């Protein structure tokens, strides 16, 4: 099976994000960047297929700024076979069309995307890419198996799971699963350091990358959380009464 993963580099989840002056962007200076968490699950899912069948190849591609190379390097360290970078800015439909072009050239059996990127949380690219390719799309997948000319994809549901069968080629978006993304081995890191990551400009794809349909009006950090309140005075009944009163009058949740 030939798997291609579309990967986005996002601010690391450990970073305390600050809104940039102007309120339309975040401060990126001194930022720690990482692979978007759902994309990491997509990598793990693909590598598990590869663990079971070594003829599987796993490629990663990212469209974004030059720094996204680090995220691709990390994917290689985890065990992906090759990576390529398309340098340029695009989003929404434009990005989907750019990725579709890369996919058409690479001719994979399966394309994996994280179900959403952790920075903008739109969950748009996967389905849009399937649309641009006119391929079937199965969302929120946690497990994958090849079946002659088709794939079987597991979707977690409440209290069980569904197995979907889709003809290949297919686009799947990946949900968090119990299997945590693997930690790269040191030989993996060393090998990844030596691998070439071919790079090209987005204009060389010759696709229409316009189509900015969204504009951020304003960004603001969440309000600072106030301190908690301890109810200690009186017996259990009095404390319970106090609690109900506060929930109703102050918190206004009852």
């Amino acid at each position, binding site marked *: 099976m030939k798997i291609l993963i579309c990967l986005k580099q996002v601010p*690391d*989840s*450990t*970073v*305390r994000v600050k809104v940039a002056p102007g309120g339309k962007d975040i401060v990126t200076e001194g930022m*720690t960047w*990482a692979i978007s968490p759902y994309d990491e699950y997509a990598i793990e899912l693909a590598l598990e297929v590869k663990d079971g069948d070594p003829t599987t190849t796993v490629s990663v591609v990212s469209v974004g700024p030059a720094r996204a190379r680090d995220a691709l390097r990390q994917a290689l360290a985890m065990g992906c076979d090759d990576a390529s970078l398309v340098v340029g800015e695009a989003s929404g439909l434009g990005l989907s069309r750019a990725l579709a072009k890369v996919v058409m050239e690479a001719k994979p059996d399966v394309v994996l995307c994280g179900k959403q990127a952790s920075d903008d949380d739109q969950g748009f690219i996967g389905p849009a890419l399937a649309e641009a390719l006119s391929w079937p799309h199965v969302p929120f997948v946690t497990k994958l198996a090849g079946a002659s000319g088709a794939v079987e994809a597991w979707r977690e549901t409440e209290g069980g799971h569904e197995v979907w069968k889709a003809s290949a080629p297919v686009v799947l978006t990946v949900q968090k699963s119990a299997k*945590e993304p*693997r*930690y*790269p*081995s*040191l*030989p*993996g*890191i*060393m090998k990844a350091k030596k691998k070439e990551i071919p790079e090209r400009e987005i204009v060389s794809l010759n696709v229409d990358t316009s189509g900015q349909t969204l504009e951020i009006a304003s960004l603001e950090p969440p309000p600072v959380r106030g301190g908690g309140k301890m109810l200690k005075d009186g017996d259990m009944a009095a404390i319970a009464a106090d609690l109900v009163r506060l929930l109703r009058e102050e918190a206004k949740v009852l």
Partner: protein
Amino acid sequence: MTAPTSGAGSIVLAVVALIGFGAFAYRALRLYRYLRLGKADPERTGQQGRRLRDELVIYLGQRKLFKRPYLVRGIAHALIFWGFLVITVGTVDLLASGIGRFHIPFSDSALFAWSVDVFAVLVLASIALAAIRRAFFRPPRMHVALDGYVILGLITVLMLSLLTFEAAGTAARLVEKGVTPPPLAGLLVPLVEGPFAASLFTGAWWVHVVTVLAFAAYLPQSKHLHIVTTLPNVYFRTTRPRGALKLIADIEEQESFGAATLRDLTWKQHLDGYTCTECGRCSDNCPAAATGKPLDPQRIVLDLRDLLLREGDALLASAEATGTAPAHQSETKPEELWACTTCAACVEACPVTIEHIDKIVDMRRYLTMMESAAPPEAQKALANIERAGNPWGEAREARGDWAEGLSVPTIAEKPDAEYLYFVGCAASYDRRNQRVAKALARILDAAGLSFAILGREETCNGDPARRIGNEYLWQQQAQANLDTFAKHKVRKVITSCPHCFNTIANEYPQLGGKYEVIHALPLVERLIAEGKITVVGGAEQATVAYHDPCYLGRHNKIYDQPRNVLDALPDVRRVEIEPHCRERGFCCGAGGGRMWMEEKVGQRVNHKRVDQLLAIEQKASSVASGCPFCLIMLEEGVGAKGVQDDVKPVDVLELVAARLSDGGRA
């Protein structure tokens, strides 16, 4: 005494000696060739003076046998050992006179006669003690096998036959002219006098020398080989500080990491296996073993030895053969390895200087770096260190937030500060430990010490990464800090965390970083002694138990200074968590990266520690330590046991800060 070997006798004896020593040499050569399968180990040479001193103290002086809980058996062992040394000289004389009809110098002296006899009796008494202990008072972790009894039996035969032939020979007037007759065996003469004395002499003499040679042949098949291997094992023991793990130099050039095969262990690590006496003291003191974990440090050593003995021939036969991976030698091996807290109780207890932690970490290195097979929670911690510079995964930018609103400058703000306070992850992010950092800041202020912190420029020192087995991440973390230290021209470092202290003081020099590093408690001891700060007591007496953090105590021998600080507090009565204090201190369970792993098997180590604390006679109202991780573990322990109102975990620094007199300075 005239040897009863005339003509043919000498030849028979020579042949028997050849067989005995030949069998020894044959097996010893084989063991040596197995041992050479191991890697080269450059750190085993140099520092001759220290190595010779170790031989005198540890080998000849038997120093490590006299540890508190093992005193009686330690003395018994020392007597057998010293007796063995003395009597071996007698044995050489016996063989020389039996085969070559000559005596070694001084064998006619009174000193020689007395030494042999006195030790023969002492050895017999000690052997009796050892046999009784084995049979009736077997220590729980002692590995009692036939081997031990065979050895005790052989030594008994040796001593009895010695005393018998001495007595019978004296009775038969066979003491050569000018030779001091055996003084103690001489007392037995009345028992053996008579017409059969000469035959008894001949019989006992032959039994004695043949037993000596049988002993020689048996030795390399037995754990008793330690009487030979301890000599080189002590000589070649590491000269690294105990708290420092081995550096993997030029790590980016290497292709494999850690101990994947027997060939990846060093020859010295194999020598450790040959030297193990199976006494079980390591396991006896191991907090993991004591709480029902699969780890038994003695088995770590012996499993490697047994693997080498089993697979040695195959490995010698083919240079390509790799044999079983030590870290996967048995199904439970990885769990054994991950259970270790690197508390060094085993290393401290081992009488023959076996280095348990290095082996465990080498195998962890293989699991972590080659197989990415560290426990998932540990990998999470590693990923957090990588991304955020702390194992909690808290924001890098928030590292200095604890100091907001305090008069604690960053080094960027105060570039001429004399000391850098390296705060560490725990005191930076953990709310409980932030109070300790604040306490130290108050003390340093009161003493008028010029200090600063790195704030967000600081990153984890790397200790958990290195001990989980990720040497690469440790080197990255260490290098990042070294670069920052260089940028700010740091020379003196204060830490409040023993792990930061140990890593910066003992491990950063491996990467070229040499600083004057001091843990806060020895520093505070000095500040009090010099009158830089004065402490006043409250009205009420507080009973405070001191808990030894492993990385202050056993790893760095900082036992007294924290106690002196407690003793300087007027209203504090210090008590010990007997018998688990000082070098027998019991780990809190957090070391060796265990802080970041789940603990689901057996009793939790910190709960056991709290049990020990509650068991002491003098009820303590607080338990004080000098380590943020001990503090977290003790807090969890007293909480889980519901005794948090009876005994409060604190850091010694908090006790000091709360008692600073106004203005602090005297």
